[in-house]
């Protein structure tokens, strides 16, 4: 599949707004995390917003999605509730998983976000199963599975993709390649010179690659992939390169650990997707300084409201730990 970046139908302002919204929320989580009131691990996507924002906009609201441990931005971009996300990280009753799940286990059925879980690769077959059901009932919806470069090392990835290819399931496999798995670089996990999408193409499905810092490219490629999937052509695998700025888990910068060089970080940071795109839209007149200020203020207010909601929400009662195990037995 060749990407077509005409720029014609790209909702540029919406793309920028979505990226800035994801960035602002995650920066706020990072800022407030040291207060010790978000008492769970957090895996931030700061630096990786272009992919989430663009895929989130390209997907239809009725499409389905699942993700892994680094899911805040996938969840939000798919239409998940920001206040309920923050409340979940705070462990509150109003959280999207009612305090049971924490930042790694998010759900918003109304938004078609069917769940994220923390075991690497764990939701790849689940997303494939969503595709199976959609195909069986002839639905035009698509199931999108978000995962990282490490997840393609798990056997379950190959098993799932193989099945989707055989059955031509309506699944979009969305790989964000940020080059690291915790502190392990690609070089110790995959052979030199491998290009993940090329390997996957060998499994018998359409696979393509793009720069995950370019939201318009991601939007176009995802849109094309979704159109192809909806036409019945079978699953598509998209790989986007991207980069996380903060530590694997937690709010800090960790270049001092030495698993990646400061020079590499600075080089990647200089291609920041949010800032670059903002400049691009300013220069091309799609947004103005004034419209940006309005946009920023609205986002800041939304984020502040989400935190206020989370902080004001009550904790679940202790007895809640003992609910939700089986369908039909609660309150018993």
């Amino acid at each position, binding site marked *: 599949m060749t990407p077509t970046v005409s720029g014609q139908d790209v909702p540029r302002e919406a793309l920028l707004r979505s990226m800035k919204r994801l960035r602002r929320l995650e920066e706020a989580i990072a800022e407030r*995390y040291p207060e010790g009131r978000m008492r769970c*691990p957090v895996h931030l996507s700061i630096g990786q917003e272009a992919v989430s924002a663009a895929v989130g906009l390209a997907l239809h609201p009725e499409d389905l999605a699942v993700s892994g441990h680094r899911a805040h931005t996938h969840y939000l971009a798919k239409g998940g509730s920001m206040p309920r996300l923050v409340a979940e990280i705070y462990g509150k009753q109003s959280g999207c998983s009612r305090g049971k799940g924490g930042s790694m286990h998010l759900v918003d059925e109304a938004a078609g976000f069917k769940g994220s879980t923390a075991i690497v690769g764990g939701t790849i077959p689940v997303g494939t199963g969503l595709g199976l059901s959609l195909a069986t009932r002839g639905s035009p919806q698509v199931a999108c599975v978000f995962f990282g470069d490490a997840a393609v090392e798990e*056997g379950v990835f190959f098993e799932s993709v193989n099945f989707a290819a055989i059955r031509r399931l309506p699944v979009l496999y969305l790989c964000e390649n940020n080059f690291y798995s915790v502190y392990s670089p690609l070089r110790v996990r995959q052979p030199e010179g491998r290009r993940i999408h090329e390997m996957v193409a060998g499994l018998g499905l359409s696979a393509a690659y793009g720069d995950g810092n370019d939201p318009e490219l991601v939007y176009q490629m995802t849109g094309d992939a979704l159109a192809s999937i909806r036409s019945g052509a079978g699953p598509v695998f998209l790989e986007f390169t991207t980069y996380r700025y903060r530590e694997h888990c937690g709010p800090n910068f960790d270049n001092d650990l030495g698993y990646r060089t400061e020079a590499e970080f600075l080089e990647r940071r200089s291609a920041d997707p949010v800032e670059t795109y903002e400049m691009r839209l300013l220069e091309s007149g799609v947004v103005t300084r004034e419209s940006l200020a309005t946009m920023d203020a609205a986002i800041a207010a939304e984020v502040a409201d989400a935190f206020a909601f989370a902080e004001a929400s009550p904790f679940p009662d202790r007895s809640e730990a003992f609910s939700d195990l089986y369908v039909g037995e609660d309150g018993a």
Partner: protein
Amino acid sequence: MEIDERILCFGLGVDDPKRIFGTTAGLVERFGPRRVFDMPTSEAAMTGVAIGASLDGARCLMTHQRLDFFLLTLDQIVNNAAKWRYMFGGQAAPVRIVVRLILGRGWGQGPTHSQNLQAWFAHIPGLKVVMPASPADAKGLLLSALFDDNPVLFLEHRWLHQMQGELPEGDHRVPIGKAAVVAEGSDLTIVTMSSMTVETLHALPALQEAGISAEVIDLRSIRPLDLDTVLASVRKTGRLLAVDTASPVCSVASEIVATAACECFDRLEGPPRRLALPDFPVPTSPALTDGFYPRAEQIAVAAAGMLGRTVDVAEIVASRTSPHDVPGDWFKGPF
């Protein structure tokens, strides 16, 4: 690794900057990347690889930062490692692998990062399962596991990583399958493991205060299970409290209680009891984990209750300086 150059150590992050919570610090520097190395995120395959390497004489030490990640490998462990010797009539090469499984708890580790599944593993004939509670036992059991010719699962509780204690020098080995009587007593037997051993020891002063003399047995090995030590103690005290780090159904505590009921029913002066986690997954919210894990005060209350007595746990409760969901004040997240 000095004793045997055929020992290999691998697992996600064994040579990364954090070195598995510091537990593999210095290893790669000392033994080189041929013997100490990171691996792909491919737990199932790498376990099979370890089995294969061991069939050719290597001894493999694998590490998982959470027990939960190891679940992907169950086919290799259960169908291959555990049965290799038996299914070839004892004629195949030995499977010499040790798998370190770290147990998470607290700070929102939640349902997929905090499971205590030792009873599952112990259920499989052909596996050995150990759970040290003290630094000396951690060293002694790890060395024994490494030089055992059978697959051994080594379960270490994250909250014990910061523990300090006497460490015997040199080639100190603790035999697998031998429990330790860590406190002698005459009124009841408390059988426990891993972090619950530490909680139980914290419960002892309050029990003593109440005039209760508890014998505490740290199992150390979950399979083989040292039932002789357990039964001898129960015969002496007549009462049994089995404390588990896992949920109660089909647990190690269940096995201990069942064995005591079968083997020395006539010596029991009251019903044995299990004290375990709730029969639910572990939630994430700090509001929901508060009180979820039994601690010293619950152990003291349960033990005293079995003797029809009450116990003052105010001092234990007052001694807690850090929030319930962290192993110490130093812990500020995120792991």
